[in-house]
């Protein structure tokens, strides 16, 4: 028998079982994880410092890159901070278009994550299917904004341009397509005995622990707490839309996967309502000359619901042409660090990737 019982294993920073570039340093005894340390910094681009050296309008090109799979909440949050500081009202139609963009982005991101969760349990068909479905969302974005992954579409004062001709029909067709695919995902993943066995009861977070740890978004709703920034501090056009917050009580990996599937269905409902209720009118309020724009002095903290959880931007203006400080709080700053570290304690090595994907931790958000 070997004397050495405990050994260290790195998963990442480049590993198919890790979302983005991120490392987990695991102390193992047999195949049981005794301790986990997360190591970030592989995606650090110094965005917060960069933003202090750019004009208000230039930063739109930076903020969307903070979260790669779900960039639009960043643009939206940044724009709403500036609007709050300068007391700007945006046109009603722009609010609807912004909400539409946010929901499409949410569906795309959840499809990505669903594929990831299923792949970590060995169901490699799911990422092929769901990423193909996500591609249809990216095509919509290409038609709307010209960009597939980064859109630079939501700008202070509204959105960059109006919907192109025939766009509404395209969106509705894509929604019908994705909705028709959902039962197939159910039979492939959620009714699959292998998946159920692997995920049921794995990495359970109780309600009390979730609240204490500051878990937000879908991960919190999988513990049975119906909290959503879209409802509890509503923004854009969400107050005019009738939608539910899906919840599950298990708090395990299975429910964290299932909640994302339920949210896709709910987002499809929201998108349809947005398309039907969308008023006519302008899409961009007049803003000052962006090259000379001085945003009034002040400080504000604004939150958005992203597909990962609660986003927050803290912005300080000193009345100059550049932000004095922009501090970004990504949802994964809690999920990807100590929540993940605590969940992995006592878990088995083969579940490490599953747990990380089920929490939907997004490393670029943590590193910024």
């Amino acid at each position, binding site marked *: 028998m070997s004397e050495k019982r405990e050994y260290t294993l790195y998963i990442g920073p480049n590993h198919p079982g890790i979302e983005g570039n991120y490392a987990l340093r695991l102390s193992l005894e047999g195949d049981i994880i005794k301790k986990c340390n997360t*190591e*970030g*910094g592989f995606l*650090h681009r*110094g965005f*917060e*410092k960069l933003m202090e*050296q750019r*004009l208000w309008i230039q930063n739109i090109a930076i903020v969307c890159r903070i979260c790669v799979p779900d960039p639009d909440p960043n643009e939206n949050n940044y724009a709403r901070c500036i609007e*709050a500081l300068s007391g700007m009202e945006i046109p009603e139609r722009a609010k609807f278009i912004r909400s539409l963009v946010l929901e499409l982005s949410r569906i795309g991101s959840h499809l990505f994550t669903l594929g990831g969760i299923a792949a970590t349990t060995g169901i490699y068909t799911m990422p092929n299917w769901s990423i193909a479905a996500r591609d249809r969302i990216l095509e919509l974005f290409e038609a709307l904004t010209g960009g597939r992954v980064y859109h630079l579409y939501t700008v202070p004062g509204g959105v960059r341009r109006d919907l192109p001709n025939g766009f509404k029909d395209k969106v509705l067709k894509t929604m019908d397509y994705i909705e028709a695919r959902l039962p197939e995902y159910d039979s492939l993943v959620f009714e699959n005995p292998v998946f159920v066995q692997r995920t049921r009861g794995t990495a359970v977070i109780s309600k009390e622990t979730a*609240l*204490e*740890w*500051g878990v*937000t978004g879908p991960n919190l709703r999988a513990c049975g*707490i119906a*909290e959503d920034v879209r409802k*509890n*501090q509503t923004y854009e056009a969400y107050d005019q839309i009738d939608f539910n917050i899906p919840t599950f009580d298990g708090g395990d990996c299975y429910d964290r996967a299932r909640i994302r599937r339920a949210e896709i269905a709910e987002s499809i409902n929201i998108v349809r309502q947005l398309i039907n209720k969308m008023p006519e009118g302008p899409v961009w309020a007049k803003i000052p000359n962006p*090259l*000379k724009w001085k945003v009034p002095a*002040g*400080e*504000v*903290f604004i*939150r958005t619901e992203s597909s990962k959880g*609660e986003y*927050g931007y*803290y912005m*300080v203006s000193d009345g100059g*042409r550049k932000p*004095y*400080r922009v*501090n970004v*709080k990504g949802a994964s*700053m*809690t999920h990807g*660090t*100590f929540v993940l570290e605590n969940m992995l304690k006592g878990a088995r090595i083969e579940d490490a990737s599953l747990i990380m994907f089920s929490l939907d931790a997004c490393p670029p958000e943590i*590193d910024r």
Partner: protein
Amino acid sequence: MKVSEIIYEIKKHFDVLSIDEKNEKYAQIEINEKDLRNVLLHCKHNMNFIHLSAISSVDYIKDNKFSLVYNLFSYKESILLGIKILINREKAEIATINDIYHPAIFFERDIHEMLGINFIGNNHLEKFILDEWDGPPPMRKDFDTLEYVNDTFDWYEYDPEWAKKLGIKKEDLAGEEMEIL
């Protein structure tokens, strides 16, 4: 419940230096540094602010201060409350609050790394992002990125062969600096 009622409650027990009420459901107040822990405990246990959304820090170099803003959210009342304190820039340290709000454990680590504020009692302040960096905390306002690049890296002349063949001058290859910046 409105945020003004919450502030009225806090005022009964603690000094509130300034109030910035944005709307019915969001306000930011400034309090004394010494009251911070007690205010947070009061907010958490008596007023349902169970969620710490973020801690943000700003370097006010002209006033020789750092600000720390603790953004709390109450799920019950749907109220967002920012609690701001100012601390001395020279002796940048303050007691940790991760025993009150667990998520602070990472927010404090991040601020310690980026602004160099020491959180007494937080045992998890090791480097996370900048583990190969030995310069000053980069988010401080006196850290100039351009100056650092000029001091650390050598510039080299960009004069490629393809440009010579086409007769393009070296000066024309360099981009012009934007005047607005």
